[in-house]
């Protein structure tokens, strides 16, 4: 067993764990953060598998930008939901 194989198997297991957290976690914020962690470890995996330019893209977009876009969208959805439930309450009153 060489060092490279061990590292890639270890990274792959971590990616799988974070993926399961992202799918089954009920807390949205934790799910989004674990999606970002998947991107981070995926970029490490690409680096180990000798694809540094793909690793750069994945680190910047997969774990950086898309996480924040998810957070922005989550915040937007929450505020819309709150507005809707408020108007329903006013109608009932």
């Amino acid at each position, binding site marked *: 067993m060489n060092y490279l194989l061990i590292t890639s198997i270890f990274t792959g297991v971590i990616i799988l764990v974070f993926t399961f957290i992202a799918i089954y976690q009920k807390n949205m914020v934790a799910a989004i953060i674990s999606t970002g962690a998947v991107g981070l470890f995926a970029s490490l995996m690409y680096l180990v598998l000798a694809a540094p*330019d793909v690793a*750069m893209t994945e680190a*910047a977009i997969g774990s*950086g*930008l898309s996480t*924040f*876009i998810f957070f*922005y969208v989550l915040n*937007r959805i929450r*505020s819309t939901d709150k507005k809707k439930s408020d108007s329903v309450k006013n109608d009932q009153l």
Partner: protein
Amino acid sequence: MKNIFTLMILVAFGIMIYPLVNSFKGNDKLPELGNYYAQPENVTKVNSANLVTAVVVTYRGLDTLGEVSILFLTAAIIAFFLKKQTGKHEVRENSEIFTTAAKVLFPLMIILGVYIFMNGHLTPGGGFQGGAVIASAVILMLLAFPEVPVNQKLLSYMESISGIVFVGLAALGALIGFGYLDNAILPLGTFGKFLSAGAVPIIYSFVGLKVGAELSNILVEFKSVQSNE
């Protein structure tokens, strides 16, 4: 019942994919097309130290053009569908450490992004990577100082001008060079030096600027629709 059904589908997929995995052998030789690109006489034709960049910008440059236009379409659709919020977006004040660190890191990240896309023909990286790093710098600033307005007009002008220059350089290759996106319209220079590979660094710089401006624009759009009312 539903779980059993899912399990059955998973097992079926496993059976389907198993022969593929089983027969996989690592390849210690390049495939035929990659071998063609890696021939010494073809490398000197492009004169780019990073062969991946040579393939992405010249041989498969049309695919890069397609990716760039897909990104442009995405940005346009996001800008079209997001409605401007009337409610005020109030955010709690950021900590001193975060704002100071953002101020320190922002110029360094921009310089790193510019370095990545200008040296795309020598080191790993290129237009998309550099642009993504620049957009990460922009989101750091957006998170640290949400009240500061962003000049979106400048971003969109930068994006359109870079796109036009990219397509123009590509067409120039077809007019005076060997074909569309040919990099031999400029002197090829010495192999491994900064001024080499003909038009590749220039094309990649404009791709980097375009991608960076576009991703930043998407993020600014998403930030501008936030409201807590």
